[in-house]
């Protein structure tokens, strides 16, 4: 039985290295779980059209629109799942929504 504090369990870990029962010996680490690879469509931030109204920020179910000093930055693609809600909400066409492969 492994008792080591595994910070970043990855799909490269052998069964012997996983914690018993999948116990997690840490908290606040869901950010380490990259959900971005689920995406089949991608929002594109068009900065010059953006008025920084921040309407898109609270509707993102994955907190993938980072805000620093009252201004939104480009998307956090490690976690954006590509739902497209932000693109629907933006009143200024500052978010384009492109299906992957198009």
């Amino acid at each position: 039985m492994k008792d080591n504090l595994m910070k970043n369990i990855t799909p490269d870990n052998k069964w012997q290295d996983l914690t018993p029962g999948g116990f997690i010996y840490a908290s606040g680490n869901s950010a380490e779980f990259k959900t971005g690879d689920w995406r089949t469509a991608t929002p594109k931030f068009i900065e010059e059209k953006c008025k920084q109204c921040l309407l898109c920020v609270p509707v993102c179910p994955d907190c993938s629109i980072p805000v620093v000093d009252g201004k939104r930055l480009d998307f956090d693609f490690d976690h954006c799942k590509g739902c497209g809600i932000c693109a629907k909400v933006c009143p200024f066409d500052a978010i384009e929504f492109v299906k992957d492969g198009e």
Partner: protein
Amino acid sequence: MAISERLSGNEAVSFAIKQINPDVVAAFPITPSTEIPQFISQYIANGEMTTVYVPVESEHSSMSACVGAQAAGARSMTATSSCGLAYMFEMLYIAASNRLPITMACVNRALSGPININNDHSDSMGARDAGWIQIYAENAQEAYDNFIQCVRIGEHKDVHLPVMACQDGFITSHAVERMELIETDKVKAFVGEYNPEKYLLNPDEILAVGTYDTPQYYMEHKKAQTEAMKNARQVIKDIAKEFETISGRKYDMIEEYRMEDAEYAMVIIGSSAGTAKEAIDELRTAGVKAGLIKVRVFRPFPLEEIAAALKGVKAVAIMDKTDSFSAAGGPLGAEVKAAIYGKVDGLVAANYIYGLGGRDVRVEHIKLVFDEIAELVKSGKQPETYKYLAIRE
């Protein structure tokens, strides 16, 4: 000095729980295991135990309460039978996969329907793939002894799995037998304190239990679980040896009875082993080389022990006190046949379904089975895939 007593199986197991004095017992009454939570409640009400009793509203909840309590760091126990065990089904898997060493007194009773409150093994056999260790008792003495050992087995650092200590409903649970109890201080010293490495109520460490696994991890966790079950084999043997030093009674994965030179053998689980031993003694007196393999531990399955014990045997009757409705026999039949495959040559293996829903199994029934397998050897015929013992037809 051991304490000589006369107790029923339920009384014996309740007494073991009182001696162990676990942190939590959560149970819901169901025949024939009802007496266990009843006795525990009385012990607690009388101030004889400090256990927290959780009076839940169902078995799904009793197992859930045990899962929560054990994960919190409390040694937890429950008791159930039949439909109660079936109602726990979802949570049985949660307990095993979260590697929580809960100890359950399972008092075997038929599953409905038709509704029946008597003994067979359909309940625990139905849960045989839930990831629990399963140890079966032949009588009240073994129910008591097994229960005490089960706590240590499940909690062992190489195992960390929940354990079912099974006994036959009514036949063992309600019949009063002469038996020996171990002094409470010795039982307490044997089981020791429960000190899990990781537990939710530890204020010094962060822990999340019951997590989600994506497909990249699920199989690795199952592999760890199956390895723990394999480890349990050695742990069960080691703990039996240690138990012998305080009780004088020997236990192993299987018990062999008059198997040394046996030509005809029976493989059986539970109380009917006692009846089979009596039948074998009579057959031996009549010159028939009959022997018995009693499967004490069904999970992990003692495949090597069974194959070794059946070497040199001409025919074996594998007795299932449940039907798996595979239309190919019972679970013990299937697993014993798998155990001997490629290991024991030329052995005639017949699978019988017997004793369902409390049907009496008497010495003459066991002798009939030995007659039938001897006849198969003599005639060179293959047995039916499986058959019901002494069925009216």
